């Protein structure tokens, strides 16, 4: 497949919602919200991620895999069958869309790792991560673009309405949704480069440019992550996996690492806080995200929105009853929530962290 699409000027738009009580809503709402910001993208990538969509397979990792060519499917499936119990295999349902004449072959698998394949030091999630890295880096034309439980990403080259129609997004019901329309600037607009970027239950949509990509990439490679998707946003997904899942940081602290306060502001803090932030910046200097960004990330327990430290990209948040919305533009929220209880613009580097309420 040709990944060398034409380069164009900047943009990107993102939107997300969460129902704190786990009430599931159809993908129709998030698609309408995203389509309102059509002007922010250029048709070279759009995508959606949803949590709570596979309740009947909630205990299995849902692998969404794109194959550049049907012929590469069998090697990947042999590898999967050798390492996982495959509960179910099916092509991801799609509808024909005139603007998307060609697409990769898209198949999903509900799997659980074979116990005898797990090593004594490696947990199930590490095994899944290693599998994703191995497939994406070693199998030509095969990309795992979603690998979490009871969640999934749906993305490709097209505008928001086309991709929603193609994947029949309105047929899914989830309690967390994120969505993205892309305006690729520095990297190709290809199916694997559309957002969200996911790993396990992490899904990231991003507007901006991670200028620290090179430093972040080399740092992540030391921990075994392989960056194969040709797009800066990929690093955010793996940094979160490393900081939160592997190193046990809480979400707030992980956000402070991604968008660390400036040294001059750290100097003003009381001693405890100053020591903590100094230690974080020194330990995780290579995980700091530099450059302009606003991003949303979903995970199995919530939704988070965060800006870069000097707010070089927009982000608006709103609440209505049990719903929290975040988007690049207020109008994208009002399109699906005309009278929010509260609307605000989060401050630079200050994350909006929303968790699902305990069952």
């Amino acid at each position: 497949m040709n990944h060398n699409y034409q380069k164009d000027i900047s943009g990107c738009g993102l939107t997300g919602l969460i129902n704190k009580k786990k009430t599931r809503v159809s993908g129709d709402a998030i698609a309408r919200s995203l389509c309102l910001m059509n002007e922010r993208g250029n048709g070279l990538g759009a995508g959606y991620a949803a949590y709570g969509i596979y309740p009947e397979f909630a205990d299995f990792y849902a692998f969404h895999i794109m194959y550049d060519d049907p012929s590469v499917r069998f090697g990947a499936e042999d590898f999967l069958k050798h390492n996982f119990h495959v509960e179910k295999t099916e092509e991801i349902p799609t509808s024909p869309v005139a603007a998307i004449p060609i697409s990769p072959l898209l198949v999903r698998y509900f799997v659980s790792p074979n116990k005898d394949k797990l090593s004594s030091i490696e947990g199930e999630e590490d095994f899944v991560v290693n599998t994703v890295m191995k497939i994406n880096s070693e199998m030509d034309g095969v990309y795992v673009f979603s690998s979490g439980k009871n969640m999934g990403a749906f993305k490709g080259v097209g505008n928001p309405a086309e991709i929603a129609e193609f994947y029949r997004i309105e047929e899914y019901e989830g309690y967390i949704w994120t969505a993205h329309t892309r305006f690729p600037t520095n990297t190709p607009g290809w199916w694997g480069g559309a957002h969200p970027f996911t790993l396990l239950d992490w899904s990231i949509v991003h507007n901006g440019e991670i200028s620290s990509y090179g430093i972040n990439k080399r740092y992540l490679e030391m921990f075994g992550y392989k960056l194969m998707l040709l797009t800066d946003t990929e690093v955010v997904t793996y940094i979160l996996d490393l900081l939160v899942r592997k190193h046990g940081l809480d979400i707030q602290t992980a956000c402070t690492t991604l968008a660390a306060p400036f040294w001059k502001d750290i100097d003003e803090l009381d001693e405890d806080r100053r020591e903590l932030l100094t230690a974080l910046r020194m330990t995780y200097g290579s995980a700091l995200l530099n450059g302009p960004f606003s991003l949303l990330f979903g995970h199995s327990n919530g939704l988070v929105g965060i800006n870069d430290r000097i707010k070089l990209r927009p982000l608006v948040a709103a609440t209505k009853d049990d719903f929290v919305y975040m988007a690049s533009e207020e109008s994208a929220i009002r399109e699906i929530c005309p009278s929010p209880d509260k609307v605000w613009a989060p401050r630079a580097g200050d994350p909006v962290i929303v968790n699902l309420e305990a069952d």
Partner: protein
Amino acid sequence: MHVIQGKGLHFKDLNAQIRAALADGQKEITLKDVNGQYYIGDGLREKATINIEGVPGNDMAAFMDGPTLVINGNAQDNIANTMNSGKIIIHGNAGDVLGYGMRGGKLHILGDVGYRVGIHMKGLNKQIPCIIAGGNAGDFFGEYLAGGVLILLGLDAKEGESIVGDYIATGMHGGRIFIRGEIEQKYCGKEVGIFETDEDDMKTLKRYLTEYCADFKLDLDEVLSKKFSKLVPVSSRPYGQLYAY
């Protein structure tokens, strides 16, 4: 009064209808159910009033040269880019990068504003742009300010709350900024000094704020009851030596 229904309309069609109405000689236009349409008011030169119901999209009033826009709620980013004359009244909050390179006219906002408000605004002789925000502002307020007047009121601020962010007036080399209440030098750019207002400043403030308070039915005396801090550049040519040898 001419009414345009904006619901579901693409910005091209909405703006085409506005231009057609103006060409028709309409002086009072109301846009209903606007949500997110970009570029409203851009480049318009007619003396007319456009009322907007809903949230207008980004890049509103760019290069605008004459009309009055009244927004009955919140507005988004990049308003009044290089605006030359006319007026914008926003009965809500507005976003980032307001009045970029603005060179004339007035932008009155009742509520909060975002980051980089008044960035590189400029003014000369009688062509003095003015932005007044009634709420709080984010970082980089008045960045690279070259001319015009920026006023921040923080009317709903709690006691002791800072009404403006960091990096105030970084790179400022012209114009005047008035902030209601105290600000600290450490949050300001190195190019500016903080001064008390003098008689001339108060005359200027009173003139601008009389009109502002009339727009939003606010009590002028109450607005003026608190001291203002004035920010002006302390070097008029900070980069004068940059390429000198």
